[in-house]
C-alpha cells in the first residue's frame, strides 16, 4: 500500500491522494501553446463555451418539455414560452446557440484547412473533429424534431426517407428508424432520447478524444513551424520568456482565449435578446400535420450546402452526391498530397485558389439551397454542386505538384 503522511494542509492532503498539483501542470500551466497564433486559435474555446450554453439551457428546457405528440408543441410554445419564468430565455439561448455553433464549427474547420492543421501527425485531430461535426449535425436534427411543428414533422419525413436509398426502396429501414409508417410517437420518443442522452454523451466523449489528439502533435501555429516543445518550454521555465516560442495554456493562452470568448458572447447575447428570429423558423410555429405539406421544405442554414448538392440531380445520383459530400471532408488529410504545413497563401497559387474556391462554392451552395429551385437558381446550384466534386478531384493532383517549402 502506498505510504501516506500526516498532511500539512488541505492542498497537501489532496496532493497525496489526487496529485492535483501535477494534474494542474499537465492540463494547464505546463501545457504549451505556440506564440505565433491569432484569434482564430480561440474558436475551440468558443465552441466549448457554446456547448456549455447548450447544455445548461437544455437542462432547463428538459424540465418542462414533454416528448409526446399530443403535448410536445404546447409544452414548448405555451408552457416554456408563456408560463415558465425565463422559459423564453432558455429556449432562445438554446436555439441561437444551436445555429451559431455551426457558424463557429465552419470557421474552426476552414481555419484548420487554411493553415494545414490536419497533417503530419495531426490527422486524428481532424478526424475526431469531423466525427464531432457529424454528431453535432445529428444532435441538431434530432433537436429540431422536438417542438413537433410542421418543419419538424416534414424535415423528419424527408430526412428519414433518404434512408430508403433511392431506387433500392428500403422502406423497411425507414419504417424501422421511425418505428411507424410516418413520424409519430415512437419517432418523437426515440429522437428525444437521442437528443438528450445518447448524442450528448457521444459528443462529450468525442470532445475528450479531440483534446487528447492534440497533446502529442500539439496545436499548429500560423507559420506551420515545427519546433521542439521540450526545448522551448525549458526556455520558458528558465525565465527566458521572450526567447521561448511557447506560452502556458493557463493562464497565458486562456486569457487571450477568454478575450475572444467575451467578444463572441457580446455578439451571442445580442442575437439572443434582439435577433433570435433567424433561429426560429416561422413554419415551425404551426403544429405538425401529416395531411398538409409546407410550400417549401428546406433545412436550417448550416445544412443548406449539402442539401443543395442533393437537389439538382435525379434521385439516385443526388443521393450518391449527398453521401459523398457528407464523408469527403474526412479524407482531407489523405487527399492533400503535399508535405507542406503552411498557410494556404504561402503554399503557392494552386492551393490558395483551391481554398478560396471551396469557400466561395460552399457559400454559393448555401445561398442556392435556400432559394426556390427555379430557372437560373437551378443552373447556378447545379454548377456549384459540380464544382464541389471538381475541387475534390483536383485536390490530390494540385497538391502532388506543389513545391516543397
Amino acid at each position, binding site marked *: 500500500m502506498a505510504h501516506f503522511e500526516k498532511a500539512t494542509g488541505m492542498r497537501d492532503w489532496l496532493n497525496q491522494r489526487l496529485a492535483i498539483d501535477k494534474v494542474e501542470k499537465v492540463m494547464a500551466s505546463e501545457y504549451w501553446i505556440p506564440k505565433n497564433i491569432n484569434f482564430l486559435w480561440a474558436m475551440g474555446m468558443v465552441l466549448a463555451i457554446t456547448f456549455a450554453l447548450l447544455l445548461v439551457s437544455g437542462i432547463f428546457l428538459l424540465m418542462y418539455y414533454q416528448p409526446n405528440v399530443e403535448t410536445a408543441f404546447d409544452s414548448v410554445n405555451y408552457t416554456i414560452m408563456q408560463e415558465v419564468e425565463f422559459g423564453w430565455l432558455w429556449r432562445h439561448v438554446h436555439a441561437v446557440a444551436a445555429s451559431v455553433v455551426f457558424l463557429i464549427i465552419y470557421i474552426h474547420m476552414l481555419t484548420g484547412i487554411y493553415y494545414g492543421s490536419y497533417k503530419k501527425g495531426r490527422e486524428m485531430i481532424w478526424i475526431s473533429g469531423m466525427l464531432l461535426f457529424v454528431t453535432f449535425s445529428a444532435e441538431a436534427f434530432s433537436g429540431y424534431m422536438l417542438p413537433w411543428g410542421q418543419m419538424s414533422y*416534414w424535415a423528419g*419525413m*424527408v430526412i428519414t*426517407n433518404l434512408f430508403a436509398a433511392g431506387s433500392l*426502396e428500403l422502406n423497411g429501414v425507414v*419504417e*424501422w*428508424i*421511425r*418505428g*411507424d*409508417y*410516418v*413520424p*409519430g410517437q*415512437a419517432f418523437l420518443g*426515440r429522437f428525444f432520447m437521442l437528443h438528450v442522452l445518447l448524442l450528448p454523451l457521444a459528443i462529450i466523449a468525442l470532445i475528450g478524444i479531440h483534446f487528447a489528439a492534440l497533446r502529442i502533435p500539439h496545436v499548429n501555429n500560423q507559420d506551420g513551424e515545427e519546433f521542439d516543445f521540450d526545448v522551448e518550454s525549458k526556455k520558458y521555465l528558465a525565465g527566458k520568456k521572450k526567447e521561448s516560442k511557447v506560452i502556458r495554456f493557463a493562464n497565458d493562452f486562456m486569457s487571450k482565449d477568454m478575450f475572444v470568448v467575451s467578444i463572441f458572447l457580446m455578439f451571442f447575447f445580442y442575437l439572443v435578446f434582439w435577433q433570435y428570429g433567424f433561429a426560429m423558423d416561422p413554419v415551425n410555429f404551426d403544429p405538425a400535420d*401529416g*395531411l*398538409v*405539406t409546407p*410550400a*417549401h*421544405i428546406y433545412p436550417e442554414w448550416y445544412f443548406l450546402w449539402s442539401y443543395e448538392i442533393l437537389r439538382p440531380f*435525379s*434521385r439516385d445520383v443526388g443521393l450518391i452526391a449527398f453521401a459523398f459530400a457528407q464523408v469527403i471532408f474526412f479524407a482531407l488529410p489523405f487527399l492533400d498530397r503535399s508535405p507542406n504545413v503552411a498557410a494556404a497563401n504561402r503554399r503557392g497559387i494552386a492551393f490558395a485558389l483551391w481554398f478560396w474556391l471551396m469557400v466561395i462554392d460552399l457559400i454559393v451552395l448555401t445561398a442556392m439551397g435556400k432559394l426556390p*429551385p*427555379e430557372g437560373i437558381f437551378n443552373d447556378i446550384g447545379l454548377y456549384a454542386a459540380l464544382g464541389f466534386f471538381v475541387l475534390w478531384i483536383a485536390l490530390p493532383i494540385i497538391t502532388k505538384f506543389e513545391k516543397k517549402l
Partner: protein
Amino acid sequence: MGKAFGAVAGVGAVGSLIAMKQTWDPLPSVKAAGFSTIDLSLIPENELVVEKWRGKPIFILKKTAEMVASQESEDAARDIIIGDAHYLVVIALCTHLGCIPAYRDAKKDFKCACHGGEFNVSGRVTKSPPPSPLVIPPYKLDGHIVLLGEEGPEYKKMKEAGVVA
C-alpha cells in the same frame, strides 16, 4: 481461454443487438392501426376525397365517363374497377420529396407546389422532377369496400403487370 471468453461475449453482443433492433421495430399497435377501410360507393364523381392511411394522405377520385373513355391503357391499368366505376386510389405524396400535390379541376390533373411536378388524373408523371407515378397503396376489395394495407388479388394482378412496385 481467450477464445472461449470471446465466444461467450460475442453471443451476448449479438443477442443484445437483436434485442435493440427489435425494440425499435414498429409496435404491434402501430401495425394493427395500419389498415383503413373506405366505402367507394359513397365517393362522388370527379370530386377529390382525401382519406388517411398509416398517417399518410390518400387521394380517392371517381373518374367521369369522359375520363375513362379518353384514357390510355397505361392509365386504365392503374384504375380500381368496381362494376363500371373507375377509381383512382393513390398515396397523396409526391414521389419526388414527399409534398402533397393539389388537384386542378380545370386541367383534371395534380400539381405539386414544392418543385413543380405534375401528374395526370391516373397519377402518372406528366412533368418532372418526380421520378415515378403516385404510389397505389396495397388494397383488397370486398364489394364496394376497399381495405388499405392488405394485398388482395386485384392488387397482386397490378403487381404482376408492373403497375405497382
